[in-house]
């Protein structure tokens, strides 16, 4: 058991609120947030972790099972692991980052084993560490976070960041939704680990992931990268929430009349499913799974079978209707731009980890599975925790800083017109769910969607402050709206098809566009391009 002398200090605060003084505030309690909190605390920082829900069940990992990009440190295996996805990701990965993520993931996974994670042992007696069961993993991470001396605030969504006179990030504030009061954490550094944005599509475990951290970061001027890679869709039963696309690798997909959908496949043929869904219902049957595979599936992912067992469907023998649920930037690769090895963002004092940060450095424009995201969550969480702790230490002993709230939309009354979160959420979903807009993109359709989204932003940002009860929903809807605009503006800036980004009007990859698209801004959304690392290196060599 670790010894802790340094905990975040609770200060006396006016009625209706609680206040803490900390070195590091971590916003989000999924894998990235808990690794960040543990790592910062191990470097001596006083840490508060605030989760919108419950640290341990919140987020895309806790509800699911995930592969982990865990590769033994043998040069040939590592080389193959890095080369494996480069083409799929459109050659936007960065070899140096891939190597360091493989190293850190190996180390973190071995720590999980030492902490008691029940990794399975194969027939040869080898512990297999390339998969994690979400509930088990996150229950353990909650325990380790508490043991590290971190103060956890559950059901405490952050609503806005605090900044000092220089514009450095210096904490955040939010609400404790079960205690009906406010929280304020003054911190020397903040880690955004709020996950991606899945637009409340009910893809498993993702309804807490509404891009809240993006909005808060954008309000202090943070930049985004690769936001055009934001349109993966996951397969689930039409009536259900369990998205486990791996298992559909054993499926046959058919139309209403029973004929097979040509080219449809979980891997490399999902667009055929989307096209068929535009015409009518699509059915799946996992008829390619033999008895052994069926048994392994049940052992590995019990929740996959809940929707079937509870409706009396045998998914191996009977057809069931399927749908594609938008996973947005949860399984996309876009997110907050990382500017150095410590996962700092472009704003002093602000760090990003996990799905909240771009995963372009190891995935390029395509993930193809949870394993890279899980590896990234651990690695970037660890680095962001160390980075934030180091930044806090270098800032020196607490000095009284004058802090200002950075929140904009839904906080300020302007128009005498009510903010309507439910209406706004629906309006955003109508622009990002449709396959013909987001899966299969085209300049003219993106431009008209953006016109409507930009108009919605003008409306929302000039509406009245949301009521106390509506504030969280209002901020969530505004965050989803802002996210959709960075996504589509970036999609318009990439006039080619690469990774998961498909343009009907530019169906091929263009070698001259092997670069990253940076985006940002709220009232005015902007994009620019940055060269890929290889191009910078070759330029330097010339």
């Amino acid at each position, binding site marked *: 058991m670790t010894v802790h002398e340094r905990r975040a200090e609770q200060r006396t605060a006016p009625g209706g609120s609680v206040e803490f003084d900390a070195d590091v505030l971590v916003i989000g309690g999924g894998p990235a947030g808990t690794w960040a909190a543990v790592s910062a605390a191990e470097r001596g920082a006083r840490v508060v972790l605030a989760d919108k829900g419950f640290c341990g069940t919140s987020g895309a990992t806790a509800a699911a099972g995930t592969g982990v990009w865990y590769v033994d440190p043998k040069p040939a295996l590592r080389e193959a692991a890095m080369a494996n996805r480069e083409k799929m990701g459109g050659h936007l990965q960065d070899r140096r980052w891939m190597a360091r993520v493989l190293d850190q993931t190996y180390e973190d996974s071995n720590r999980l084993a030492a902490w008691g994670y029940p990794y399975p042992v194969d027939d040869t007696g080898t512990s*297999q560490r390339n998969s994690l069961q979400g509930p088990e993993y996150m229950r353990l991470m909650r325990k380790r976070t508490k043991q590290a001396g971190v103060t956890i605030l559950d059901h405490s969504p952050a609503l806005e960041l605090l900044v000092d006179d220089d514009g450095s990030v210096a904490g955040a504030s939010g609400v404790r939704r079960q205690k009906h009061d406010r929280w304020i954490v003054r911190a020397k550094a903040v880690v955004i680990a709020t996950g991606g944005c899945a637009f409340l599509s009910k893809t498993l475990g993702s309804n807490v992931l509404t891009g809240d951290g993006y909005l808060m970061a954008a309000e202090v001027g943070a930049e985004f990268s690769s936001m055009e890679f934001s349109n993966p869709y996951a397969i689930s039963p039409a009536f259900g929430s369990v998205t486990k696309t791996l298992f559909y690798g054993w499926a046959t997909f058919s139309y209403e009349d029973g004929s097979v959908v040509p080219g449809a496949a979980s891997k490399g043929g999902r667009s055929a499913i989307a096209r068929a869904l535009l015409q009518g219902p699509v059915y799946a049957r996992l008829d390619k799974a033999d008895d052994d595979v069926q048994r392994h599936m049940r052992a590995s992912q019990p929740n996959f079978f809940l929707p079937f067992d509870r409706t009396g469907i045998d998914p191996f023998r009977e057809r069931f209707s399927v749908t594609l649920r938008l996973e947005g930037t949860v399984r996309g690769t876009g997110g907050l731009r990382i500017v150095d090895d410590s996962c700092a963002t472009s704003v002093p004092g602000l760090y990003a980890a996990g799905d909240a940060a771009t995963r372009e450095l190891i995935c390029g424009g395509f993930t193809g599975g949870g394993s890279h995201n899980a590896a990234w969550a651990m690695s970037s969480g660890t680095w962001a925790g160390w980075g934030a702790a180091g930044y806090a230490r270098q800032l020196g002993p607490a000095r009284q800083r004058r802090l200002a709230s950075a929140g904009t939309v839904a906080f300020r009354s302007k128009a005498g017109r009510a903010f309507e979160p439910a209406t706004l959420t629906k309006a955003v979903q109508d622009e990002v769910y449709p396959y013909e807009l987001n899966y299969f993109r085209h300049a003219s359709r993106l431009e008209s969607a953006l016109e409507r989204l930009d108009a919605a932003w003008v409306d929302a940002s000039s509406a009245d402050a949301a009521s106390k009860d509506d504030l969280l929903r209002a901020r969530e809807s505004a965050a989803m709206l802002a996210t959709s605009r960075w996504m589509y503006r970036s999609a318009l800036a990439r006039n080619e098809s690469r990774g998961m980004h498909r343009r009907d009007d530019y169906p091929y990859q263009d070698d001259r566009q092997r670069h990253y698209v940076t985006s940002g801004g709220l009232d005015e959304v902007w994009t620019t391009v940055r060269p890929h690392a290889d191009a910078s290196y070759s330029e330097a060599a010339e």
Partner: protein
Amino acid sequence: MIEVIDAERCTSCDICVNVCPTNVFDKTEGIPVIARQGDCQTCFLCELYCPEDALYVSPYAEEPRPTDVVALRQTAALGSYRRAVGWTDETRDLRGIDRSYLLFGH
């Protein structure tokens, strides 16, 4: 969506109120209530954390499907997820049987 809190099994420990990531339940003087069913994301985690197997999440994610608790008690559904992942004393061995490593690369 969450459909059932079995009043006969629930001990009012309020664990579900705490662990639900989308804050669907409210505490009361007695057993908790499903206060915001529409916010349920059908993640099944409340069921998994309920030590009394008193909760039932219907697999229908899009709309409520009122469920008869008396009929439910006749089935093996209550607590079935918790048993399957090895979070009961009798099924602890199941915690380490993940066979995903045999399924990857398909």
